[in-house]
């Protein structure tokens, strides 16, 4: 080990891995098949009948000869889309992080502690695998599934429009196109309602705390999905770099007027507003931030739906808008 200085760096990097999921896309994702920037999934014209040709978020083409009956989902967001299209009963493998809808708890896990168990995936005998992009499903695993000849769709939506497109993609794959169109229409209406409600309001400079460690704050990355949601919800997001990192000095310069503690979703000690305010006030440099001086530090308990790119992302948008502009939602949307 002494001869391998690089190995000593690894422990330091673990927090970075943890928050990588919340970071902004820095550049087009290089994947097994190679992609260009944000390829949008598409469905060949003859969508209803099989065989159907699908193009996924990694730009890979997949031909489905018949309607998939055994679906494995490698990401909670994919699971939620399948279930929202009323096809929950086709899932034969999910992740151990899946918690919605509640009935998925009974489905076998094939992803354990964020690592894909390829043996369990094969044992589930899937005729469709819904993988995740951005290394959430590792490229090495995608290559292995390809080598085994298993049908894989990679889903990696980075905007609301791409979430809609992925819902329609899964709808086309599972012969649920009308349901997918209905769901997307409903989501679009709800987004329009949020935008209408907050449209003319003041837009506070808002820091969404994804993670905090030793003076480094992880927030919405520049150009990230989360930053876009904050804007739709009527805020001016205080963004970090592409990874969502914002240093103490940049934070003081940006001087947020409102701080949403997404961390409170996982850390019960931050759920109480008084305690939360005291906790962040104790961080060096934070006591002079406008939001801290004004007591505008809000424990935000809906992080899961806000950062999981499934159909409930709109629940997240509504929760953000309510947290940022409570006065606009007194009767509740």
């Amino acid at each position, binding site marked *: 080990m002494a001869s391998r200085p690089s190995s000593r*760096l690894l422990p330091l990097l673990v927090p970075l891995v943890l928050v990588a999921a919340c970071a902004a896309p820095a550049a087009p994702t290089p994947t097994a098949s190679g992609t260009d920037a944000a390829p949008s999934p598409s469905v060949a014209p003859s969508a209803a009948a099989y065989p159907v040709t699908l193009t996924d978020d990694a730009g890979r083409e997949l031909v489905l000869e018949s309607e998939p009956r055994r679906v494995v989902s490698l990401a909670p967001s994919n699971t939620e889309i399948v279930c929202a299209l009323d096809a929950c009963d086709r899932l034969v493998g999910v992740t151990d992080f899946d918690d919605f809808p509640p009935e998925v708890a009974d489905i076998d896990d094939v992803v354990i502690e964020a690592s894909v168990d390829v043996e369990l995936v094969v044992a589930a005998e899937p005729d469709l695998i819904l993988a995740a992009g951005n290394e959430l499903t590792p490229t090495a695993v995608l290559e292995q599934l390809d080598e085994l000849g298993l049908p894989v769709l990679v889903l990696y939506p980075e905007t609301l429009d791409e979430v809609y497109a992925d819902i329609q993609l899964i709808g086309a794959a599972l012969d649920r196109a009308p349901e997918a169109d209905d769901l997307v229409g409903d989501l679009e209406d709800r987004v329009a309602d949020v935008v209408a409600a907050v449209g003319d309001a003041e837009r506070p400079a808002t820091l969404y705390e994804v993670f905090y460690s030793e003076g480094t704050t992880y927030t919405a990355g520049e150009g990230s999905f989360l930053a876009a949601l904050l804007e739709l919800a009527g805020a001016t997001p205080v963004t970090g770099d592409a990874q969502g990192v914002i240093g103490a000095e940049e934070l003081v310069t940006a001087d947020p007027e409102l701080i949403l503690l997404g961390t409170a979703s996982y850390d019960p000690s931050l759920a109480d507003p008084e305690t939360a305010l005291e906790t962040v006030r104790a961080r060096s440099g934070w006591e002079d931030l406008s939001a801290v001086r004004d007591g505008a530090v809000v424990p935000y308990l809906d992080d899961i739906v806000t950062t999981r790119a499934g159909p409930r992302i709109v629940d997240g948008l509504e929760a953000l808008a309510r947290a940022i502009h409570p006065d606009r939602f007194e009767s509740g949307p």
Partner: protein
Amino acid sequence: MSATTAVRPIAFGPSLGRSALVLGAGVAFVAVAAAAAVLSGTSDIGIGDAVAIVLHRLTGIGPVTWPASAETIVWELRLPRVAAGMAVGAGLACAGTVFQALLRNPMADPYIIGPAAGASLGAVTALLLPVATVGWLGLGLVQLFAFAGGLLTVLVVFSIARGQAGTPVVTLLLSGYAVSSLLSAGVALLIFNSGERLAAVIGWLLGSLGGASWPRIGFAVPLIVISFSLLLVRWRGLNALLLGESQAAHLGVDVEREKRILTGLAALATSAGVAISGTIGFVGLVVPHLVRLAVGPDHRLLLPASLLYGAGLLVLADLGARLAGGIPVGIVTALIGAPFLLWLLRRSVRAGR
């Protein structure tokens, strides 16, 4: 150990009976580890089915009474992984034995003069290249870059250390350390700029046999087998080098040539192993020590025994890693091997050896 036979330095090995016992136990260990790893996994394929599948694929006999997925799991997932584990473990243990003798340094491991750092830089570079993976001889771009990076680094280190009067061991060690540090700085720089590829980079650096498939190991495994086979027959030179370089030269060994060949073969085995599994620590450092404590320093027995126990240990550790939810295999090799080494050390200290 074996003090009674220390009369002729080149052949101070243990008795034939003891050698047969050690090697026989080693073969049994590898066989048991491999069988356990092929027959068990996270899916619930019965042991009977798994045995029948292997027999069916080897001989074509027997009716197919299992689902196709079970055959895929046993033949396409578990077996190549076991084969890769055996080859990489054997290669690392052999290379570690060679470097410990060559450098006369108990802390020497297969990575000591740079192949790990070189392979890491190669692999991480390939991971961050914005191009589609291209394959060659079944190796992906990442494996290819790792293999080339490892070999190239050893070549550079050896050339730097080589002078008019030969290649001093201390210079070799220090230049290996310096080049490793330089390359590791490059790796660290790439890591901090890896953005959304970070998870892939870290995953590779931690080392895993999870990516093993028949096409992927088809190039590296034969290369490792050839390297350690050629190393096995060079036990005389290694024994002579244990006495010191001038003594070895007096015994008629062309020390410089021997050094070049041994370093080249060990680097080849190490680089090919790193290419398919990433950098797996511990096996190459500790297995030679374990075996040396048990059988003594004669490389005629030490090399093949290290090879066998390295192969068995890595297969067993990888099985543990698989069953424990895919944790890095290096953690398991250390968890199994370190307490055992400490126990052997205590025993030998108490015995005053």
